[in-house]
């Protein structure tokens, strides 16, 4: 490899153009008409479509390998166990975790955050303590902490965002006090597209020995995540937002913290030995994986990670950055449109409103053009309150979207004005 790199005219894999048309062939669902128009799927922040490789992995598992894991001595159980643990290794490498023991499979980012709130949180947050979040969080990174704070008599503190939708770091830092027991912050805002300076946030919090949980649901499919570089303590991810099946995701946690945390759910697989007098819990990561897990979808997640690796996360990032920049430019040209969320560091998400036209009406008219977008509050009601709007229209991009689709979106928005006058 290194000898090739020295040759000036050699084409290195990273310089091969990103062939989006070829990528699209991997996604069967994209090749259909909706209301007589080619489907333009721009709702990727809600969920992404699945490549053949993932769909086939599920079919293969259920038609060849289905079995319970970690217990049988028979061939099928061994195959299922190997495939399941292979997925863990794939995830570990994908986010550069130090150890596979630090990857806990859960239903999704929501469950991952609840797990931390209910174990680490219940153990470490007490009366008068504080949990610090930001004003741009998804409900899944608000409500689990509210539940915890209510139970413990603790206080939920919220760091403000500016008009662009960026976290006000100075205010955030001021809110870190000796009462703060944990910080929970989104890596990439689903409603605004803002990328938070997680590394800086972690540094600030760690300076006061406060651990940081990062909600990575939107970031994991869109940018290179290196949990050791970020130095975050927990990182929560949903598989279905990164081209894997629904119902599977993972929690990364530093081994040292996970070891010290009480288990969350009790049951099979999470124990080393059980008597009626005393149960010894299993080692990591199994301590947090009670009961038969979602084996098939975990394997699907592993395959999705492989798929992303093959395409190259850096190239996906570049492709989506181009789409977002182009969409921002094209949508901004349309009279009466206001973009909500104009952070300098931004990815994947374009939220906007149109004067005197409600997002739902825009959504219906775009749908009639075969364009799928999300309209509503995007499970981030406090963000809507911050901008004093009931809802936005959100176009969110994925690795298979094209510039043509951006143009279709812009045409669709112009049609809204035509239809509604």
């Amino acid at each position, binding site marked *: 490899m290194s000898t090739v790199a020295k040759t000036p005219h050699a084409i290195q894999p990273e310089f091969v153009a990103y062939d989006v048309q070829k990528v699209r062939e991997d996604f069967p669902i994209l090749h259909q008409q909706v209301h*007589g128009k080619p489907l333009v799927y721009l709702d990727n922040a809600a969920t992404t479509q699945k490549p053949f490789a993932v769909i086939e992995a599920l079919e293969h598992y259920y038609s060849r390998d289905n079995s319970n894991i970690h217990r049988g001595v028979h061939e099928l159980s061994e195959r299922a166990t190997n495939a399941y643990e292979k997925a863990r290794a794939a995830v570990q490498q994908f986010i550069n975790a130090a150890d596979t023991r630090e990857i806990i499979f859960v239903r999704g980012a929501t469950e991952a955050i609840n797990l931390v709130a209910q174990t680490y949180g219940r153990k470490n947050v007490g009366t008068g303590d504080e949990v610090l979040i930001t004003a741009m969080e998804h409900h899944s990174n608000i409500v689990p902490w509210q539940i915890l704070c209510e139970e413990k008599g603790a206080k939920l503190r919220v760091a403000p965002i500016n008009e662009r939708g960026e976290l006000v770091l100075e205010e955030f830092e001021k809110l870190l006090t000796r009462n703060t027991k944990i910080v929970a912050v989104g890596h990439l805002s689903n409603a605004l597209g803002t990328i938070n300076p997680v590394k800086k946030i972690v540094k600030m919090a760690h300076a006061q020995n406060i651990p940081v949980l990062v909600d990575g649901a939107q970031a994991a499919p869109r940018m290179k995540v290196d949990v050791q570089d970020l130095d975050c303590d927990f990182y929560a991810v949903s598989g279905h937002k990164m081209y894997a099946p629904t119902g599977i995701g993972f929690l990364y946690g530093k081994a040292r913290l996970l070891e010290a945390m009480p288990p969350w759910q009790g049951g099979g697989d999470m124990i080393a030995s059980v008597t009626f007098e005393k149960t010894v819990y299993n080692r990591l990561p199994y301590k947090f994986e009670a009961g038969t897990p979602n084996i098939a979808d975990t394997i699907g997640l592993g395959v999705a990670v492989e798929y992303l690796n093959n395409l190259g996360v850096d190239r996906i990032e570049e492709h989506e950055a181009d789409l977002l920049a182009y969409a921002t430019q094209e949508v901004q040209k349309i009279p009466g449109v206001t973009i909500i969320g104009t952070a300098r560091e931004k990815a994947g998400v374009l939220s906007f409103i149109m004067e005197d036209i409600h*997002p739902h009406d825009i959504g*219906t008219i775009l749908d*009639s053009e075969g364009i799928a977008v999300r309209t*509503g*509050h995007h499970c981030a009601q406090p963000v809507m309150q911050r901008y004093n709007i*009931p*809802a936005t229209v959100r176009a969110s991009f994925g690795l298979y979207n094209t510039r043509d689709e951006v143009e279709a979106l812009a045409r669709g928005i112009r049609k809204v004005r035509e*239809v509604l*006058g």
Partner: protein
Amino acid sequence: MSDDRELRDLYQEVILEHSKKPRNYGVLQSADHQAEGYNPLCGDHYTIFVNVKDSAISEISFQGSGCAISRASASMMTQALKGKSQAEAEALFTRFHDLVTGHGGDANALGKLAVFAGVSEYPLRVKCATLAWHAMRAALRGEQQAVSTE
């Protein structure tokens, strides 16, 4: 298959006109009935105010915000209900509901409200068209809690 014709059926001129210039819009001071309709997912939020005199609706108004369909529906509802008894209002509620959910019924009996027939082609928008109606019914029935059609 949806096409522009269906879209124009949904967003008829009358509907767009009412959504831009809603009738009976505003707070009715000293209303003896009022109720709130709120769909948190989409953010549509209305309050319906009603005064009943001699067992008929003497005054009715609405206030709030939402999409074109919900706004026009609220506006045209207030026009249709003035002077109606509670029983008549309930009957109209049912007819309107049947119309927008595609359960047929007598469109003629709905008068101008028949323009909402196009909603039945858009099941996801039924909640928009019926929000003000549910709030109106809750107001007449004296229900305290905000209603939702989501």
